[in-house]
């Protein structure tokens, strides 16, 4: 789990070119900082990808990271967005153990979290949940007692609120 005191979000727009992910990740690694999550995907322009990187670092160092990232030739924009109102989302797929006795109970919890059942067998149920990291964490905690068999989380994606660009 991320310690919110030391988690910083940096949004990076990059040219969609080979090696860019390694350059960005390597730049963070060689400053001795752990990447908590990193998500990469296309933007409205297919030649440009957005990386949302959550790093475990003190907030005062985040701007330095953004500056270093801007030096990567393929980086078009790098913004530290912790001080800006923003929307954060993460998606998780969680496969839990079910028995005929726990199935309804789990579905009730899922309802509260607006999670949906995406796969069901007589022994397992796979749930999809979307939300802020804290919400996903809370959901995972509640499901733990049933036995989580597997989990996959996408890592956080973030956009700044309103007309301002991220």
């Amino acid at each position, binding site marked *: 789990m991320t310690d919110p005191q030391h988690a910083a979000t940096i949004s990076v727009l990059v*040219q969609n070119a080979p090696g860019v992910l390694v350059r960005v990740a*390597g730049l963070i690694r*060689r400053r001795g900082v752990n990447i908590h999550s990193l998500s990469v995907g296309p933007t409205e322009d297919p030649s440009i990808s957005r990386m949302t990187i959550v790093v475990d670092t003190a907030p005062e160092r985040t*701007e*330095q990271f953004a*500056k270093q990232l*801007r030096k*990567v*030739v393929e980086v*078009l924009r790098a913004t530290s967005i912790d001080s800006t109102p923003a929307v954060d989302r993460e998606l998780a797929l969680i496969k839990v153990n079910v028995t005929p006795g726990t199935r309804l109970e789990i579905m009730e919890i899922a309802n509260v979290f607006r999670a949906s059942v995406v796969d069901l067998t007589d022994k397992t149920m796979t749930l999809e949940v979307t939300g802020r990291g804290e919400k996903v964490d809370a959901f995972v905690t509640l499901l733990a007692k049933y036995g989580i068999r597997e989990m996959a989380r996408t890592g956080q994606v973030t956009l700044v609120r309103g007309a301002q660009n991220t």
Partner: protein
Amino acid sequence: MARQMTAAKPSPSAERPRQMNGAQTLVEALRREGVEVLFGHPGGASLPIYDALYDAQDIRHILVRHEQVAAHAAVGYARASGRVGVCTATSGPGATNLITGITDAMMDSAPIVAITGQVPRPVIGNDAFQEADVTGITMPITKYNTLVMRAMDIPKAVRMAFYLAKTGRPGPVLVDIPRDVSQELCEPDFDEDPVLPGYRPVVDGNPGQIAEAADALSAAERPIVYAGGGIISSGATPELTALVERTGIPVVLTLMGKGAMDETHPRCLGMFGMHGSAFANWAINRADVILAVGVRFDDRVTGRLKDFAPHARFIHIDIDPAEIGKNKPAHIPIVGDAKRVLAALVPLVRPPKIEAWWKQIEEWRERYPFRYRQRDGRISHQYVCDLLNRLTGGRAIVVTDVGQHQMWMAQWYKCREPRTFISSGGLGAMGFGFPAALGAKFACPDKQVIALVGDGGFQMTLQDLITAVEHGLSLPIFILNNGALGMVRQWQTFFYRGRFSSSILRNPNFAKIGEAYGARGIRVERPEEVESALRTALETEGVPCVVDIQCDPEENCLPMIPSGQSVAEMILDD
């Protein structure tokens, strides 16, 4: 020269596409960048490139005996001339031998382009013979690197490499070319502009920030300029000098900043930092406003950061935004090219009232200048450096290696102009000095270039004496020989109770080595022989001259601010 040739005889490709292979395309692209000299060593993966170079009468390839020398020579060439230095190596071991020099260029912001051969495309990633992931390895030590996968992409890759190397904050760029790409036929377009939407160096400073900086300097009681290598890269010496002459503000220099201002100018206090003068260190640490230009607050300069100039407000000018506030918060940050920002700043600064400040500085300067002792019968290192300064008038291009001799030369050699002091600063790479001097001599054949090295560092790259002999270079190489890795021995003296673990050297006879290579060799054992030996070496034409000077084996380089400490802990005498 190369440019004029291409201009006079336009390439037929202008009218009708002409087929050439990737290697020929590379050579033509280098020609169009104005490359006259490249340093390199051939091998399997670069054979096609060397075949194309065989026909290029206007590009001199200097064959070195180890690729490490090629990279250091490219740096020496770049830093002496301001032009882009070029080195080349084959795949695998050839390319990995360039690493130290490329890292040096990265740390000291030297514009170089490294061209490496790579194994053919079909076997990349298969652990082929002499394969190394060179773009992977050099990612953190280059400003940019690229693996070219089509011959037709070579012109764009080369243009981009030179453009990135020399603009913004200069640095090394590596272009990796698979052997079969060098052999592939293509119809190159040399006029295609590289597209770099993410690369926009800011050169003009923010006018509001510049005005604020001018006000801070005008109102200062104890201002000082902290000038570094960025002044030299941007050619801002005239602007810095104008600022100082207009305002009377004193200047201290970093090692990389030597040459940024005439050190014999009364306003220039010379080098500060770990082995800088006591007075320069006292001055910057008592300052109330510090104008830091083209510097990066390196730990060898600042010591313990929280105690560095604790009373000062910092104005920090740099072309690299990531340097501003990296180590020390800047009160007035200005991103921009030193030359342009200083030019805008000079007319806005009103001369501050700093008579009392100067009185204090002069008192410090008088109380503790650089000094040295000459023990009976022993040759003092500092005496040699001092003498070299006097004999050359501070107008030769001095290239040093790394260690005690480097610091002594930095203390005693008073540079009169930019690009006359070349040294491995950030990386501190032993083995740099002689090859970089070689590169500097190729860049400036008509200037006096001298190499000053230690007995330890020289042995890391001395095999290329033959290269200097082969090309008939008038290059004196002075070895301050103290039979030790002097700086290691010094730290062991101060911090490890004199336990000299692996720092004492048994040395060969360097003068005889020089002679064996076909150079002139002189061995100096007594103080009274020094001056005539230096003169002889400086006057030797058409051949390098190795001068092995047997120096005092116990001398320590002082003053010294121990690593991680502050000016209060400066060691003045031993």
